[in-house]
């Protein structure tokens, strides 16, 4: 058996180290190290509640709106505040803009460039894919960046700026939109829709959102145009459907609350890919275990945890804790959201593949883009200028609150306890904390650690392209993972 160390691991929003045990050119065990600790949970202690709106988003400049919303949502739960209806819509609009920018950045800037690597020089598609997706030089990135910039102009309208806006509050958002603002928001989305329908999907968004079976995906792959179809053909050629299988259980906290009646746009819950069954979400089943973390303490619910570094802890190899749901390592992200919500093509694809995979993670992200952008268009239509965008929260001096939201990469939770108007406990469990968790006290690996087991290295050791694909298929955000 040989031990392979992989790192620095880039295009993962932060840094990552893998330690792989290999036998016969195949990974038999993987350990995932999150190598950065800044101590945000320690910094939040002792502060006024509202300071979490300044501090928490700065955990992550990639999903800063998500971090803001988890903090605002914890504060809303604590104070019993219901957001103004307009504010719920503008919040969702900004959050969706961030999430779509993240999904698209992942696809064009982080994930696809690996298919332009020299590993694939012998493939018939190498020339075409190389011209389109080579990191920083390909035509796709050049076309995508101005679209991303245009999409993020939603932030200028709704949230002042991005990243790190202070517009998101328990009661809504701080900037009202008037009729002109609504028209500008619509114009931004029209530009983004046109670009996506031209280059990513080569089809109306609705035609992608409404696919109903794995065979529909096969038909898109066969038909030809667009980067989505290109990816589907790569996935078939390289059998990305069998690569990086997920742990079986996936979870979603429910996305875009207050936009579909009183509920979220995408449902909350658990889904077991081995049995095809859904179960309701019980937040009390969430436990964090620091057995292999450079952090002190024992396994327990986040609401009762405290964070203290212990860099000499025996058997520790990551700054991340191991979150578990009812004892299970669960996968989160777009594929989890679409499975829990019951999107028929994603459910069918995962059933056909036998588990979540490199392919279905990417497909789910792109299908989600096609589902979310049309929803954003309807939210703008429902904004009523003149009605409030932000209700005033009256905060008690003692209590607790939990904010569970869906970031682009999956479920993000903030657990806050307050005494005398000051934060006394603050715990954050981020999406990639779930996906890239280290082993728990029972020795059970996290989802990525399990997904890497069995991966073939093709004689390339640490440089194996398959490793790159598996890791990046989760769209990791390492700066969130430990914080």
């Amino acid at each position, binding site marked *: 058996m040989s031990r392979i160390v992989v790192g620095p691991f880039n295009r993962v929003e932060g840094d990552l180290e893998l330690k792989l045990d290999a036998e016969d050119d195949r990974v038999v065990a993987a350990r995932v190290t999150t190598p950065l600790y800044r101590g945000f949970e320690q910094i939040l202690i002792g502060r006024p509640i509202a300071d979490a709106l300044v501090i928490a988003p700065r955990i992550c400049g990639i999903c800063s709106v998500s971090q803001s919303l988890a903090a605002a949502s914890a504060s809303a739960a604590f104070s019993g505040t219901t957001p103004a209806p307009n504010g719920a819509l503008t919040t969702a609009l900004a959050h969706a803009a961030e999430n779509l920018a993240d999904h698209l950045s992942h696809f064009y800037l982080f994930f696809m460039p690996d298919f332009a690597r020299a590993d694939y020089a012998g493939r018939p598609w190498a020339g075409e894919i190389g011209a389109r997706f080579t990191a920083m*030089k390909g035509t796709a990135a050049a076309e995508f960046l101005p679209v991303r910039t245009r999409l993020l102009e939603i932030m200028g309208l709704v949230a002042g700026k991005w990243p790190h806006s202070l517009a998101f509050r328990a009661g809504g958002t701080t900037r009202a939109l008037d009729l002109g603002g609504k028209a500008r928001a619509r114009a931004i989305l029209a530009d983004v829709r046109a670009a996506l329908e031209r280059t990513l999907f080569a089809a109306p968004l609705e035609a992608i959102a409404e696919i109903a079976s794995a065979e529909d995906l096969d038909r898109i792959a066969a038909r030809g145009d667009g980067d989505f179809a290109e990816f589907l053909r790569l996935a078939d050629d390289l059998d990305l459907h069998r690569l990086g299988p997920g742990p079986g259980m996936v979870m979603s906290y429910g996305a875009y609350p207050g936009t579909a009646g009183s509920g979220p746009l995408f449902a909350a819950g658990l889904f077991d890919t081995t049995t095809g069954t859904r179960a309701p979400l019980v937040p009390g089943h969430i436990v964090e275990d620091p057995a292999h973390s450079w952090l002190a303490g024992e396994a327990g619910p986040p609401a009762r945890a405290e964070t203290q570094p212990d860099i000499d802890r025996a058997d520790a190899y990551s700054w991340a804790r191991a979150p578990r749901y009812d004892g299970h390592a669960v996968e989160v992200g777009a594929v989890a959201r679409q499975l829990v919500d019951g999107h028929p093509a994603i459910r069918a694809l995962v059933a056909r593949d036998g588990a979540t995979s490199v392919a279905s993670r990417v497909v789910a992200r792109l299908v989600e883009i096609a589902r979310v952008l049309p929803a954003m268009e309807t939210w703008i239509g429902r904004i009523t200028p003149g009605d*409030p965008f*932000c209700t005033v929260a009256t905060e008690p001096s003692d209590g607790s609150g939990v904010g569970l939201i869906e970031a682009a990469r999956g479920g993000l939770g903030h657990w806050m306890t307050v005494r005398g108007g000051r934060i006394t406990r603050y715990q954050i469990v981020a999406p990639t904390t779930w996906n890239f968790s280290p082993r728990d006290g029972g020795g059970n690996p996290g989802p990525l650690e399990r997904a890497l087991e069995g991966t073939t290295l093709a004689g390339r050791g640490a440089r194996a392209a398959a490793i790159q694909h598996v890791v990046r298929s989760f769209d990791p955000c390492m*700066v969130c993972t430990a914080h």
Partner: protein
Amino acid sequence: MSGETVKRFNVLWLQAGACGGCTMAFLDHGRRGVFAELDAFGIDLLWHPSLSEATGDEVVAILDGIAEGRIPLDALVVEGTVLTAPNGTGRFQMLAGTGASLLDWIRRLAARARHTVAVGSCAAFGGIPVASPDPGEGVGLQFEGIERGGALGAGHRGAGGLPVVAVAGCAPHPGWIVETLIALASGELGAGDLDPLGRPKFFADHLAHHGCSRNEFYEFKASAETASDRGCLMEHLGCKATQAVGDCNQRRWNGSGSCTDGGYACIACTSPEFERARGFLATPKIAGIPVGLPLDMPKAWFMALAALSKSATPKRVRLNALKDHVVVPPGRAKRWGAEGGEG
């Protein structure tokens, strides 16, 4: 730059104790996209952690090449706080696959770089991660808060003669980052173009207040009281724009925005030690008077003018200050003429 032969200028970008937000802002620059804009000025990203193809041992080879002087480096860009914990070892952030801390790598690489650029207030001064209790014992590249020192030391100068160039902000405006790189690549950025903290004067010689869309509310001290009110954010809601540097309101952010336009306080994110505040979203006061007054403004005059302007506040301004939309529109004059106003 058409017609000229562009001299190439290579940049190595590292993320220390960062959130990645500075890179996210950087990616937001340029009508044709930031890659095309950099290329037009001969700027090559030798390696960037979020964007480059090279990974693992390919990256280590680049870093070793620079550290050993085999690969010339025009600019080392660092994003994020440099963590020194525990006990100066830097083990709170190890560069994966190398067994060495970011602290060590930054020191080795900066010694070879022609210029070193701190992108964001974390790399410049420490930033949010050094807020109490400063768990990572973080420092900026050449400052610890307002004190000179930091990871590279007060005396550090690049081969190009400059101290660390500090593109402050959390996150900085995309233009501040890219325009600084363009100015360096074109050889136009001199020591005289930096303020005493190393911030390029082209943005740091302005106040965030300049150009604020709430200026009429400021003039009349018609103040917002709750989040989403249109009034001035200084008196009650924590705004420090009259004390913080940046041409924030002379540019637009994400197409049309800015912090104050977005309805929330400037928290002085371009300033060293901005993270020391407690209660960012409420204005600290003594006897009802804000503690922080506009820079360069004599306190007595400010008090006198504030009292006078409050007493002269038009009803329109007073009422609109407390709403999220205009409830009293500007009066309409009958006809343009000697008295002004529209017809």
